[in-house]
């Protein structure tokens, strides 16, 4: 089993989700994060004080998949989330020990 974490641009979420869905990925977990990286932030002004905001809103997806699906999933994300502009984000892949589905108590790939 692999755990795939990816940071993408927020407006790409639906596209990525749909693409993964077609691939057979049946579940994922999404959170709102702020990213810091090469992509520039912006400046805010409040009564003459200037704030330099370096964090950019991003979406983080966590997807647990069986080993054989993993490559396909990363490839699909890489394609769908790409705009070619700075700030498109990253995909991180790591090994997962076990998965349990709470509803049934199933373990391993059956639980995904």
């Amino acid at each position, binding site marked *: 089993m692999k755990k795939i974490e990816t940071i993408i641009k927020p407006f790409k979420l639906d596209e990525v989700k749909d693409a993964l869905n077609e691939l057979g990925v049946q579940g994922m977990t999404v959170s709102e994060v*702020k990213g810091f990286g090469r992509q520039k932030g912006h400046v805010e002004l409040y009564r003459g004080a200037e704030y330099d905001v370096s964090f950019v809103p991003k979406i983080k997806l966590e997807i647990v998949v069986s080993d054989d699906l993993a490559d396909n999933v990363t490839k699909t994300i890489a394609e769908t989330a790409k705009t070619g502009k700075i700030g498109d984000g990253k995909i991180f892949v790591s090994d997962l020990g076990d998965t349990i589905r709470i509803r049934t108590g199933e373990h391993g790939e059956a639980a995904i």
Partner: protein
Amino acid sequence: MRIILLLITGFMAFLPARAFAGETSSLDSGDTAWLLISTALVMLMTPGLAFFYGGMVRRKNVLGTIMHSFMILCAVSIVWVLWGYSLAFGPDIGGIVGSLEWFGLTDIIHENAPAAPTVPHLIFMMFQGMFAIITPALITGAFAERMKFSALLVFSILWVTFVYAPLAHWVWGGGWIGNIGALDFAGGTVVHISSAVAAAAAVMLIGRRKGYLREPMPPHNLTMTILGAALLWFGWFGFNAGSALASGTLAAIALVTTNTAAGTAALSWTLAEWIHRGKPTALGAVSGAVAGLVAITPAAGFVSPLSSIVIGGGAGVLCYFAVSVKPKLSYDDSLDVIGIHGVGGTWGALATGLFASLAINPDGANGLFYGNPSLLKTQAVTVIATYAFVFIVSIIILKLIDWTIGLRVSEEDEFNGLDQAVHGEMGYHFGLGGGGFSPTVHTKAEAISPKPAPVEINKAES
């Protein structure tokens, strides 16, 4: 002003009579202006209440809670114009109810108000209508977060018809309570006690929220509650000082006692909880202000500013302890209609019997502290009669609704929240700060257009 005009009228008796018989011959434009704006102020109280309540519920029910008050504003606006006003203030039938003679208002459009001869009948009607609107809206705090929307609509219409209208008639429309000399300047019994008693009936029948006393249910947005309280306080000037039905000293007295009682009660509630719990809360402060406004309502035009300090001070402390005791009794009057409007309204009705003074208002009466114990008795009788009447009829109405369409949403809807389940909306889509994009929704293409319009491609993606 009016005295002068009367004198002039007499003096000029030789003038052709019709000049004074014109439809608006005795209208006073200042009194009318004050009633017009008072009506607007009282109207604003219902949205104010919607925010007061809406901020106190959980996020998932904010729209559902606001909708209760808002739809009551809409529905009772129509009911009042059609039959409500006529039942409450129409030609008296045996001291019990008004006739339906003024159904639809057609016959009274160009008249002056019988109860306030210097203003147009229609504005008196609408001013009273705003009271009829806010009263059932007050009740909704009791069954917040679980009432069926259709049941709410039916309940409000029936309740205004069969509880509010007769009660208003008894007190203000020429009915028996007014006739025995009870004092209710702006609706202590008619509005506050009656809504609280109906709330008690509703709480008994609808039961507690799932998870009550086991799950945390903190107010989701106290700034919204404070906004609501501010609008209520503001609107209450129209409610109480408008009830003078004229723009003169009596209105000024009522405005002053109203403001003073609100301030005092907010202070006394906050101090009580500061001493009792260690912290003065913002929710306590605004709840106290509302408690004070409730308590001064029946007394506003009958008591002195100094008395209003005592009335407000008492209201804050009494209502604080009433509200504190609720969890121990473990009934779920969710937003404390009983603790604030019931306790505060009852205290105010009795306090009127203590502090009323003919020196303040010669059309009123003296209370116990001004040597007249009988007024207190009359006030108590009124309170008890209101308890009994409102409770019985409210229970009947609620039971009928429960048997037919049901009072309560399904457990699943309650769990998911009224906003999503009943109204198909969410109060807030704060989503991602910067992009403004909410990851929780996507467009159901077919619902919106047969095929996604491929016209413009968003090339500016950052």
